């Protein structure tokens, strides 16, 4: 039986970590960290986990310590946010290329400047090419569920890649909402134990980690890493199928919301998707064929699958909650547009950058996007492709 609770996103992730009882949690405790290590420290103090809990001097070090533990064959976790994630940047790439399946919880927040602590995806999108798998959740429930699936995906022998479980900073991380938790023993049984095939200290077959890769070797390693990211797609689906069988909640690469006969659609991520769903519901009541695709898996990007879903639409708005400064659209737009490039019949597509630094996204704003899409669908005129929404006009 699920346990009816009310928790913040941070508490939900800390709870999942307690249930999984990882071998090592290395953390840097000050802002911009999250409350996750704070909750976890209590579990350590209360004897609810036997995790080696290591306080280090920076995020660069916390991830490095996790990698050391992973290389030694342990299951290691950490958590961070915003500038803390940026400070890990160098080590994120080491995790990916060393094929060490550390699981990192990220409360997604803006990057400086101006100085801002609120939510957008500036931090996680900046790390999209780091070799981490990235899972995003709409609310505390999805974040918890993603966390329960995370280790199995990351540690799978055909994947062996690090993974970020992303929650929306403050909107999810600090808001208290209802959640269905699963029982500890069922979570433990679902996640299983970690027994890597090779690790640093395995005497019968010792492993070198982090070697120098001269030009004669580097590319092969990168191609193998790219293949692992492709392999992750099937593993993500397999783990989701088992999750649904075990706990009853269904997940895929993305959620299609009222897309069956949708003529206009949004591609969106995280908590904003919930708000946009409320707009879709209202529009559907007045006969507008609006739908929504909420991206759960951003890395690996489910391009082919997404293109199939969008192919039937007349107009699509991609909603980017980070500014990539490419001068032609944000990262989610680049991926989505790229995914659709070889479709015989493509929808008209625009990119809307919104919600930066915690700028609120409302049902009215979502309806405004659909109105714009209706105009594009009717006239076939796409207008300005890359725009911003919600900012004050000068």
């Amino acid at each position, binding site marked *: 039986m699920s346990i009816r609770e*009310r928790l913040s996103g941070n508490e939900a992730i800390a709870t999942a970590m307690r249930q999984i009882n990882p071998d090592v949690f290395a953390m840097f405790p000050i802002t911009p960290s999250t409350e996750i290590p704070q909750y976890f420290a209590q579990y350590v103090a209360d004897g609810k986990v036997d995790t080696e809990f290591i306080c280090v001097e920076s995020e660069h070090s916390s991830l490095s310590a996790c990698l050391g533990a992973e290389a030694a064959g342990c299951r290691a976790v950490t958590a961070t946010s915003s500038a803390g994630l940026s400070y890990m940047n160098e080590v994120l790439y080491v995790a990916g290329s060393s094929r060490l399946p550390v699981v990192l919880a990220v409360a997604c927040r803006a990057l400086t400047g101006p100085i801002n602590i609120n939510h957008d995806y500036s931090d996680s999108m900046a790390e999209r090419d780091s070799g981490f798998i990235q899972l995003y959740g709409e609310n505390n429930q999805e974040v918890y569920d993603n966390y329960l699936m995370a280790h199995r995906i990351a540690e799978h022998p055909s994947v062996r890649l690090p993974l970020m479980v992303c929650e929306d900073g403050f909107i999810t991380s600090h*808001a208290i*909402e*209802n959640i269905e938790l699963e029982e500890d023993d069922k979570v433990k049984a679902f996640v299983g134990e970690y027994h890597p095939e090779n690790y640093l200290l395995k005497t019968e077959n010792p492993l070198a980690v982090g070697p120098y890769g001269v030009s004669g070797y580097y590319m092969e390693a990168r191609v193998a890493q790219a293949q692992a990211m492709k392999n992750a797609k099937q593993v993500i689906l397999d783990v989701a199928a088992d999750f649904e069988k075990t706990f009853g909640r269904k997940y895929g690469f993305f959620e299609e919301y009222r897309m069956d006969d949708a003529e206009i659609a949004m591609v969106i991520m995280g908590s904003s998707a919930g*708000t946009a*769903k*409320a707009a879709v519901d209202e529009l559907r009541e007045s006969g507008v064929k609006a739908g929504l695709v909420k991206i759960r898996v951003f890395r690996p990007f489910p391009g082919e699958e997404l293109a199939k879903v969008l192919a039937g639409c007349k107009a699509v708005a991609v909603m980017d909650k980070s500014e990539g400064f490419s001068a032609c659209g944000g990262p989610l737009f680049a991926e989505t547009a790229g995914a659709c490039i070889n479709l015989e019949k493509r929808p008209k597509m625009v990119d809307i950058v919104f919600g930066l630094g915690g700028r609120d996204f*409302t049902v009215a704003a979502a309806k405004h996007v659909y109105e714009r899409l209706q105009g594009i669908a009717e006239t076939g005129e796409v207008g300005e492709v890359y725009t911003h929404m919600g900012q004050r006009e000068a």
Partner: protein
Amino acid sequence: MAKQMIEIRWHGRGGQGAKTASQLLADAAFMAGSYVQSFPEYGPERSGAPITAYNRISQERCLVHSNIYEPDYVAVVDETLLESVDVTAGLKKEGAIIVNTAKTPDEIRPLLKGYAGRVCTIDARHISTTNLGAYFPNTPMLAAVVAVSGCVEREQFLQDMEGSYRHKFAKKPQVVEGNLKCLHQAMQEVKG
């Protein structure tokens, strides 16, 4: 979709516990079987600066994750905010505002920029200092909001809160009685 959602906005000052009050209300509604949201609006956190917190209470999971612009109820934990913050902005006239003050609703109404709906007052300072010996406005404010909004059934609320306090303050039973008295007294004394 059922339209029975109740939306509440809290105004307080950093350190007074408006965020905690919003969490307590979410707890109470959760215990009564509802779906809840409780979230503060985060900014530079300074003691004494105006802060806002929110609640949604519904019979189904709340999809919307924006701030609340047209609340059914507004709770003002610190009456000095009436001068500097537009506390009735967007407040539905079928709803109500609940202000922590020793004044009467008639005395408060002129400060509310023409708000035409129900104005309620509660002297949380008096109730808190009488029963707890110190100024913790949260508990009386919580009870007043429950009494005025009806977002949780009264008897159930009192019963659940008692259970919750007995659990939370298992080692400090004297605190339990004081808090329970605050709840009862606030539910009776809220005016308007």
